[in-house]
């Protein structure tokens, strides 16, 4: 599909991205809010007092696996390989703490903020991308295979 990258799925990626954009647009124009998953999750689970009504936060969080399930059903299953439990716990802790300190994740900063040309979000996105790239590079250099 993409010359030089036999494993890439550019069309599915673009289509998925458009759906994510529509989801965030619906949240913005429909409910007047940012579709930032880390903030909404913190709100749903009572960790943050800010943001949308808790019923809405819950509905959004429940929708995430629901939408993935619909795609899994219609496409005949989704291939995915996950890290082991220990790296998952370490990663989860870092993601949880980091997104709260940094006020957002890939959706709030990366999609909603970057498209708004928010300086804060552009800096945050550049930072977490660089950190992710460095982490994978270092783990590869050390020969740490986490995915099974």
């Amino acid at each position, binding site marked *: 599909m993409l010359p030089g990258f036999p*494993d890439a799925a550019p069309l*599915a990626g*673009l*289509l*998925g991205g*458009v759906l*994510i954009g529509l*989801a965030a647009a619906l949240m913005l*124009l*429909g*409910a007047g809010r940012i*579709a930032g*998953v*880390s903030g909404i*999750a913190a709100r749903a689970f*009572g*960790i*943050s*007092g800010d943001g*949308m*009504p808790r*019923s*809405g936060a*819950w*509905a*959004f969080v*429940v929708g*995430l*696996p629901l939408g*993935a399930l619909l795609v899994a059903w219609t496409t005949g299953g989704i291939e*995915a*390989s*996950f*890290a082991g439990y220990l790296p998952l*716990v370490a990663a*989860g*802790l*870092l*993601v*949880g*703490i*980091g*997104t*709260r*300190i940094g*006020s957002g994740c*890939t*959706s709030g900063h990366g999609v909603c903020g*970057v*498209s708004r040309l928010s300086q*804060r979000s552009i*800096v945050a996105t550049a*930072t*977490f991308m660089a*950190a*992710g*790239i460095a*982490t*994978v*590079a270092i783990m590869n250099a050390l020969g740490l295979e986490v995915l099974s």
Partner: protein
Amino acid sequence: MTRSWLVALLSGSLFGAGLALGGMVDPARVRGFLDIFGDWDPTLAFVMGGAVIVMAIAWRIQARMAQPLIGTTFALPDRTDLTPRLIGGAALFGTGWGIAGLCPGPGFAALVIEPAKAAVFVMAMLAGMLIFRLMDPSHKALQE
């Protein structure tokens, strides 16, 4: 506000479908995207690109609206200051993202793909959020 949860459910479902379709619920694909010095997989650039283009249009529309379709006001971030917290937090998040190839949205979406492992990630993430809340003196009390 009674219908706002319906908007949220629809938005969350569309979001989850997009994550699944775009390959973001597969940590191998996410880590492949971050592996720019190795066997790089550019797929997620297309995901980000598609999402950002649609949202850029949505922001243009938002600028012409006095209020959202449901509810009376837009509740949007208005901060512009670059702080050590913003950068430090993003660096911690990016490190976690790189370790397991999961960020918050795909963590929840993956609950139907690989339930046990996604649940462990999500619980650790919520624990991390709680740890931050307990350590952060500036947090606002939960308003119910």
